[in-house]
Each structure stands twice: as structure tokens, then as C-alpha cells.
């Protein structure tokens, strides 16, 4: 297949790429842009390790062609911090120990962030539904729910 030019905005930064149009968004993020925070854990769009945000939606980036994200804003875990200042959800994860091996964490953070931006005060049930598409083999999820709850309560509100 003929390669084509693609303009992609990732974490606030414009990138110009030259790719095969059947390249998945996760491949562009990881291999072309070198942002390896986003992971892959399956080939069946099942595990959520590749979750990023496209505009205000949490999306499994293994299920999307890179060309489909043109003109949108893609956000990955690397884009959560601002000049080294961690986002509330990242601070909450640290306080609650909401990660162990950390492999699912970047994707999990993006699912959490997307939910919080849509609903700043989700209930525990809504939180669990919001991260249902993200598998975590280590934590059993409850520490993640606690972290989300702490952010929802306003514990990390900026001064």
C-alpha cells in the first residue's frame, strides 16, 4: 500500500508523519512517535492496555487506524502531567498504590481521566463500569476505585 502523509496532534503537539494507511493508532504512538507509555496486551481489543483519549473519549488505540485520528486531539498518559506537575488522578494513584506491575497503568489512567472529565463525581459503580474495559491482573481494581473516589471527593483540587 502507498504511504501517505498524516498530521496528528498528540499531547498538545502537532506531528507530521508518513505512514502506511493501515497502521493502527497504537503503532503510530509507540513506534513512530516513541511514546511507549501506551502498551499492548492482546490482539482482540479486549484488555485496554492501549487506551488513549481521542478528544474527550477513552478509546482502545488498537481498534483505531491512525488516519482516523487526524484532526482530533490524541492524549496519552505522558500528556497528563503539565511541566512535570502531575495530574490529580496520577497523584491519587500514588497515594492509593493503585498500580503494581504498572503495565496496565497508562491505559487505566486514560480511562479514569476520560471518566472524570465527563463526570467529575462518579459513584463507585460508575467508576467500576468506566474501567470495565481495562484489565488489571495485579491490583484487583479496588485501589483504583479508591483513587478515583478521592479525586471525585475533591482531595486533589488545584488551589
Amino acid at each position, binding site marked *: 500500500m502507498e504511504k501517505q502523509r498524516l498530521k496528528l496532534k498528540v499531547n498538545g503537539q502537532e506531528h507530521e508523519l508518513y505512514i502506511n494507511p493501515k497502521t493502527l493508532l497504537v503503532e503510530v504512538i509507540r513506534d513512530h512517535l516513541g511514546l511507549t507509555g501506551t502498551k499492548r*496486551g492482546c*490482539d*482482540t481489543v479486549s484488555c485496554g492496555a492501549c487506551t488513549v483519549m481521542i478528544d474527550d473519549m477513552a478509546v482502545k488505540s488498537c481498534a483505531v487506524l491512525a488516519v482516523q485520528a487526524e484532526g482530533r486531539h490524541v492524549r496519552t498518559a505522558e500528556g497528563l502531567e503539565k511541566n512535570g506537575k502531575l495530574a490529580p488522578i*496520577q497523584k491519587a494513584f*500514588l497515594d492509593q*498504590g493503585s498500580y503494581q506491575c504498572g*503495565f496496565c497503568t497508562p491505559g487505566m489512567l486514560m480511562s479514569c481521566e476520560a471518566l472524570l472529565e465527563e463526570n467529575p463525581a462518579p459513584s463507585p459503580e460508575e467508576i467500576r463500569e468506566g474501567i470495565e474495559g481495562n484489565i488489571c*491482573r495485579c*491490583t484487583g*481494581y479496588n485501589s483504583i476505585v479508591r483513587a478515583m473516589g478521592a479525586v471525585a471527593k475533591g482531595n486533589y483540587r488545584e488551589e
Partner: protein
Amino acid sequence: MKKYSVINTHVHNVDGIAKVTGRAIYTFDVKLPGMLYGKILRSPHPHAKILDIDYGKALDLPGVIGVVTGKDTLGVKQGIWRRYQDLCDEQILPVDKVRYIGEPVAAVAAMTEEIAEQALDLIDVQYEVLPAVYEPLDAIKKEAPEIHEGFERNINVTRHIEWGDVEGAFDEAEYIREDWFKCGGQAHMCMETRAAVSSYTPDGKLTVYHSSQSPYYMRGLLAGVLGLKESSIRVISHYVGGGFGGKFELDGAIFCSAVLSMKLCRPVKIVFTREEDFIATKRRTPMSYYVRTGVKKDGTFCAREAKVFTNGGAYTGMGATALYLTGFFHSFPYRWKGYRYDGYRVYTNTLPSTSMRGFGAPQAMWCSEQQIEWIAADLGLDSIEMRRKNAHYSGYEVPDQASIASCGIDQCFDVVQKWIKEKGKLPENRAIGLSAAGFMSGGIFNWFDSPYSFSSAVVTINYDGTVELHVGAQDIGQGSNTTLAIICAEALGVKIEDIKVHSGDTDHCPADLGAWGSRQTLMAGNAVKMAAEDAKKQLLEVAYAQSGFNIVYDLDIKNRWVHALARPERGYDYAELVKKAIRGKDGQRIVGRGYYTPHRKGMISPAYSYMMQAVEVEIDKDTGKIKLIDSLTAHDCGQPINHLGLIGQLEGAFSMAAGYGYLEYMPYEDGKLMNPNLVDYKVMRATEMPEVPVAEIDTYEPEGPYGAKEAGEGLTNPTAAAIGNAIFHALGVQMKECPIKPEMIVNALNEKEAKEKEGKE
């Protein structure tokens, strides 16, 4: 519980920033200059001779750099039980024959993953298909095909544990029950699949990035199979995306990438797809259990006898240890006058089985804790009081096997009883199921034949008082870097922020057996404590020299404050002392060394954790579907060290153990796994997890650092049985097979109804 400055306080995981900002580089992410991508061609047959492999066409494909087969290796049969040569039976890239569907047969290195994948289709393998067997009871028949030469009737390993006069104890029993059980396998299903990047260079050195639970084991095993010196190999394993018992043996990724790299003198990366991870990485050992138990009418345990067959699959792996541990923990946590276990591990042409979190104990508890509940019901006894009557206690000796120095199981019973009482009457179709368990804190047996201490640590103090802590212990997500930093900070008297942990690199870290068998908190923790105390002693020597205090005064360092214990308010900053001490050593940093190997600690482990779990389960009678509503776990791990880490490990263990109870089936048909993907293989999701509150029981383990013992693996043991027991109490049916499928419940209910109808007619 004692109050410490750092221990059991709310400490952030020391790898937190890297993990929550996407900066952590896993082997999955590693890219080296000139790196090639490797793919493995796998056997489609469960049992076949390899007659010929023709890869000429693959080499012709543009972008393919090289191909390797068993003929490119030394043909060494390797295994992790190095001390027992006949159990070292796996070539990984076999030379003569394949023994399971999915076994590697050849490996290709190419410029891209896509090209490597295409090249696989161009390799022509000539097989002579042989008859295959898939179940132990078929594999032991006289007419079964021989899977490994010299293993009569495919019996791989046998284990026998016995104490007391078993026949006599059965004669004393007033009630005897016998039951047959089946325990399934389970996939480790680490979020990071098996991954390795091997780089062999013209100076004869091999550097390997590996997603591993033990870089030290990998270095030793690679040296053996590649004919290299251990010192010529460097294994790096900084961040690991989960292990759970599946990543401390050589796997296809590390082996094939190393062989390719040595042939081509280029870095080669192999990452398993999720499907490969399911079909070609060893799994939890499936077992069939026969249990006969004799008790007195008042519930006193007399005798137990278990006969177990385990499905070893095609190779030994860590199966020999699982075979022993299942039989040992099948007696836990109770005293038996007479106990006998006969375990047989049998080769079959299926995916090899090995260690997985719990190491044979989840299977043992599935059988034991359910049968105990049924016995209590048969005799009309309270099952908790019956357990209490027969439980271990501090100071108990498991005959010829173990000394129990600390045991909090009795307090566990109290906590659970209280919780059940407070719950009161439950809604219809809901019931609480119970299970007790106990587990080891590392093993005493040196089957790897290591010449080094089981754990070692080096503490180096810099001029500004910060500390470089070098350990061989591997963090795979369980938080060992943090736990060991906490112990170091407490022992030395500094703050957690002062410690920088170095681990996961065999070039820079001391040898350590690695993260398995729940050994690191106790063993590496002891080594770290010793090293920190060694360094502190050197500092205090200088402090004493200049103190002018009367000889009766003791000095100590706490929270970076050097002081006399009797006069804590009069002291000075630890950093001042460090500067003086380094000047006193002619500018040399203060270095403390520590190590630990268990000596004369019985047959299994230096220390044991104990727990009792209650799970509230709701069952839909019509569909057989299960919902976990609530739970309580009373847990004795001695002194907790890493508070956040502990909670995380216990909750995580629950999700994996519950998965073994009712979700994670691995159906095989003619040696082929039918659900090698995450659509069909079900794991716990956030919506299915109940709350997992844990009541910590206060005990002190003399062998552990600050009284600590294992936490996080033991709790994988009880949940399947607890779920089974809940079903028993809700519906009156006995689950013999795990994982429990909904149709098993429905069928059991139908059978029960049919029997009751028969009884009435």
C-alpha cells in the same frame, strides 16, 4: 503491633513516578540500534518426530536475516531443577521431536515483525506424527506412547509425605469420608506477555533484556544452554509487567532470541502475542485428588490420606515443587495424627504445567477446605469451631516437615466469626463460604544448585547521607523495591527518600534467587537488614569514638538523628556523622554487606503465613451464574512492612484466586487450547470485584525481618474453596471441579432435585 518510623507507615511505592507517567521502560518497550524482530514457528502436532526443516525459501524473503532450529543449539536439555539432571528435560528448540501443540520448532529474525511473520509460512517442516495422550490416567497405561525416554509409564516425578500411624489413626476415627476432586489449570496472563531482547556482540558477551522474575536464574540457565560463562552474560530486568510464577524459567522468547542473536551477531527482540502467551507458556498444574479423611464425632481430626495425579504436560518445569507443596499444604493449617500423601506427576502431550501463585496450594485447599465443610455438615458441627479444635499453633511441629514459630490462625477464626455474626441473616440465594489456609515464606531447598547465598544486599552510604541499596531481589509489581527500601531505611535510621534501590541487573546487583515462593520479604529483607545494620555499626563506631559518653550509654540513629538511647533529645544530624566517617575511612564510602540462606529450617520453609477467608456469594439458581457480594479476610503475615503494597497484594490475590474459582477455564481438545484470547478466557473485571477488607492479625515471626512473613501468595489459596463452600451452603450441592462453570451448578441442582424426587417416590 510495634510502631516504627518507616515500617508499616503510608509509603509511596518507590517506582511510582515512572509507572504513573508512562516513563517506565519494560522489555516490551526496549529498542536497540540495529535490532531485528524475531518470530517463532510452532508445532501444530501434540507429539511428532521432527524429520526435516527446510527454511531456504524463508531466507530468500527480502528482509529476513536468519533462521535457527534445534540444530543451531547445543541440544542441551535444561531445566530449573539443575541438581537433578534427569528432570532437566527441555531443549526449548527441540532437536528430535515435539511434545505439545505450540512447542517452538524454528525461529526467524527479520527487519520487521511483519516480515518475520510472513517468513514463518515459508518454512517447511517434515513431521512424523506420533500417537499422543492428554490425561494422566491415559498416559500411565501400558499402551500409552512414551513421551520422554527413560520415564516408564510417563511418570515424571513422585512424592510421598507421611507421618504418624495412618492406619491406626483411621481405626480411631468415628466418621470417614472419601471424595474425588478435579482442579483445572490457569494461565498466569501477565499484562506484559513473554518478551526478550538479546544482543550478542563480537567480544563474546551476551546482554539480555528479559521480562523476568529472576535475572540471576536466567543468567545461570542461559550459560548452561549456550555454553557461555555466566560472567559473559548480563540480564537486565528493570520493569516487569507481572510474573505470577511463570517467568523464572527460560521461555521461548529469551531462548530463541539469544540463539538468533548469537548466530547473527545482531540484537533480536521476541515478544509473544497474547495467543502465544496462552498456548506456549507453562500454566498452573491441573490435578486430580482423592481424599479420605477420618475424624471423631466431636470433630477431632484423626487421619487423612490423599492420592494425587498432576498433569505435568510435556516437560518438568517447576512441576516437581508444585507436586510436593500441594501435598504438604493439603495438611494445612491442621494437626493430623496420621497423614499420608502420594503425588504423581505424569507427562502428557499438553502445555507443560509449572508454578503459579499458590504453587499447588490453591488446588490443595479446593479439596481440603470443601471436604472439611462437608464433614462438619455431616456431623452437625460448627465448621469454624471444628477447624479451631485442630488448628496449628505457635510452637507446633509438623512431624518431620516444619516448625511453626508464629501462627495467628486462632485469632483469624475469632475475626471471621464476629463478621459472620454481624452479617446476620442473608437474603435468599446468598451464602457465606469459608476457607482457611497457610503458606510458605520462601523455600529451603537449593534445587537450582546455587553456590551463592539465597539473598544478598549491599548498602553504600554517600557523603550526603543518601544510600545506594543494591539487591538481587526482583520487583515484578509486588513492590519488593519499596519493601526492601523500607527495611533499609528503618534499620539504618534514615528516611525512605534517602534510599535509592538498584535491582534487575546482573552486572550490578548481587545474586538472589528471585521473586517466587513468596521468599523476598523474608529472605532479601533479612539480607537488607543485615547490610544496613553493618553500615550503621561502622557509622556508630565513629560516633562512639567521639562521643565521650560513659560506656553504659548506647547510641542509635533514628529519623536521621544520631543520639544516645537514654538521651534522645541530645543528638546531631546523621549527615554530619557520615561526613566524619567517610573522612575517617580515607574518603571511602561506608559499605555494609548482608546475606541470608535458611539453615536447618525443616523441609519446606523458614516461616508460614496463616489466613481465614469468608466470601459472601449470590447464586442465580436458573443460570448458575455467580456474583461475589462481599468478603472478609483475616490475615497473619507477622509484621507488615509495606502497608500500601500489602493491601494491593492481598486484593490482587483475591482477584486471581476468585478467577480460579469460577472464571478462568482452560478447555483443551486433543491437546489444543480452545480459548487462547482475552475474549474467551475470562478474568476478573472491575465490575465483578467485591470489597476485600483485610483484618491484620498481630503476630511476630522470629525468622523474618522485624517479624515479617509472606503476604500476597498465600491469599491465592482459599478463595476457590470459599466460593465452593458458599454454593454448598446456599444450594446444598457439592462442587468437585474448579473452575466452577454455571452449568455445573445447574446440573448439580437438577441431580439433587431428581434424587430428592426418587427419595419421595
